[in-house]
């Protein structure tokens, strides 16, 4: 499904700020996998997403999606197959445009000069009802006036509207209050399982990483230091993860945020 084949990337090569993000990094994700990714700050989790989405092009190596090489494909073309949700609820929507207009951009299926049709709006309303956030009653409201949770739920709907092959979630609930975060997470799980999406989710919460998905990856310093699937993941515990990390790295990665978050 997704295959990252020995990519390397050095930022600001030759300058004082030179920083090696990846060296011969490889990862393979099977169709239908729901992978949770944890790791300390600067471990390269978001960089991994940026490489997959094409925000930067690796210096070496190849990236394949569904058998097709996408290493040099620009982001907006990858977006047809990859949905991307960011931590900041403001990132995924256009604040000065209405809910309907935002959805039309994400889910409209006409040509460039097509206008939103009533039938399409009804479809939007149906989808919005599934979110259970009262968004369907505020179709004409600018997205900027919505709460963070509402916006993130809308972003989730937009990112998954055309059923992408791959969904990238970069701590998409970290900026929300616990109750809303839980709701958005439940929604995420529902959509990912319902549409059988392949999904990668970065999180800072070990509990979340253990509770969701069928595979868990721990990253540090641009490398995968732990990779558990199926039964092994199910039987893993927070203490186990912490111990693992100390053994592999020696340093204390377990910030309060990771334990409590």
């Amino acid at each position: 499904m997704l295959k990252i084949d020995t990519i390397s990337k050095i930022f600001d090569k030759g300058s004082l700020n030179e920083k090696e993000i990846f060296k011969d990094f490889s990862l393979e994700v099977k169709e239908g996998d729901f992978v949770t990714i944890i790791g300390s700050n600067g471990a390269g989790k978001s960089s991994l997403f940026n490489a997959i989405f094409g925000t930067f092009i690796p210096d070496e190596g190849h990236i394949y999606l569904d058998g097709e090489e996408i290493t040099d494909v620009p982001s907006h073309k990858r977006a047809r197959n990859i949905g991307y949700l960011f931590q900041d609820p403001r990132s995924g929507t256009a604040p000065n445009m209405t809910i309907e207009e935002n959805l039309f951009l994400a889910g409209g299926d006409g040509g460039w000069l097509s206008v939103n049709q009533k039938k399409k709006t009804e479809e939007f309303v149906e989808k919005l009802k599934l979110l259970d956030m009262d968004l369907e009653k505020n179709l004409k409201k600018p997205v900027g006036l919505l709460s963070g949770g509402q916006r993130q739920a809308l972003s989730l709907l937009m990112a998954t509207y055309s059923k992408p092959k791959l969904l990238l979630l970069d701590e998409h609930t970290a900026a929300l209050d616990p109750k809303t975060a839980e709701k958005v997470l439940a929604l995420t799980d529902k959509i990912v399982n319902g549409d059988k999406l392949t999904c990668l989710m970065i999180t800072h919460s070990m509990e979340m990483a253990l509770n969701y998905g069928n595979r868990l990856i721990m990253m540090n310093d641009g490398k995968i230091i732990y990779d558990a699937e199926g039964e092994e993941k199910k039987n893993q515990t927070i203490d186990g993860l912490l111990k693992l990390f100390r053994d592999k790295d020696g340093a204390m990665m377990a910030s309060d945020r990771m334990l409590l978050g």
Partner: protein
Amino acid sequence: MSLVSLLQTTLLLGLISSLTVLALYVSYTCLNVCDLSTDGAFTLGACVGAVVALAGHPILSIFAAMAAASVSGFITAFLQTKLNINSLLAGIVVNTGLFSINIAIMGNTSLLNLNKTKTIFTMVKDLLKGTAFEEAYAVIIALVFVVIAIICIVLFMKTRLGLAIRATGDNPRMVQSSSINPHMTTIVGLCFSNAFTGLSGCLLAQSQKGVNIDIGVGMVTVALASLLIGNTIIRKNSSILKPVSAVLGAVIFRLVYTIALRLHMQAYMLRLISSVIVVIALAGPYIVSTLTGSAGKKIKNRRRKEDA
């Protein structure tokens, strides 16, 4: 000059410049790009319109002016997207280059006379001869163009492409995530907006029966001032009212200017006034919030602490 004809001239100039304001509505308000090539594109429209009209094609001259300005918009957009040049700088560079091009188009002169040339204005004047609208022919032409422009813009902004252009100004990241190329939307947006700037220049040249190379100087500031005046008057965020408010702003700006002239202000003060209006409109909300809002309290608190 009688009051009626004075008002007519004011209305005419306001309506003609409102086409540039509408162009800025698309580029500045929707696309969030401050297109500093506006002055040059305005003059380009005027020059191309004049030259084509002189060659005996009054109707074609209008489309030629729009097309030429559109090409200039394409170049500005190309520089800021594909060549990654800062958008302000791209506008300035194109604006500077257009000066030479405009003189070249006019045939190595900085002045063209259209006194005896057949233009859309003389055509309509002949057409309306003897009717009740005879006197107001110029205003009618400008009004027709403005109405068509508003309809075009309102309809275009409702299409998927138009929405994508608005979203590009709002949140480029979201546009990319919706698998739309923000470079493409910027290019289309600036081509579209500049067409109206060119039309505006063309109509001004033909209505005043002549064009000189300075015709567009300061146009971007005047248009920006008009746009901001319009925004202050109509605050409602509706896709139809916004373009209308742009036109209203342009006419009001001209009206204020005309009144100031009657009060013996010198004509050359126009640009200073437009600059001041832009500064007030842009800085006003900030100053007000600083004096009354939380920012003001912070400053006062800091002063209090320093005093203590």
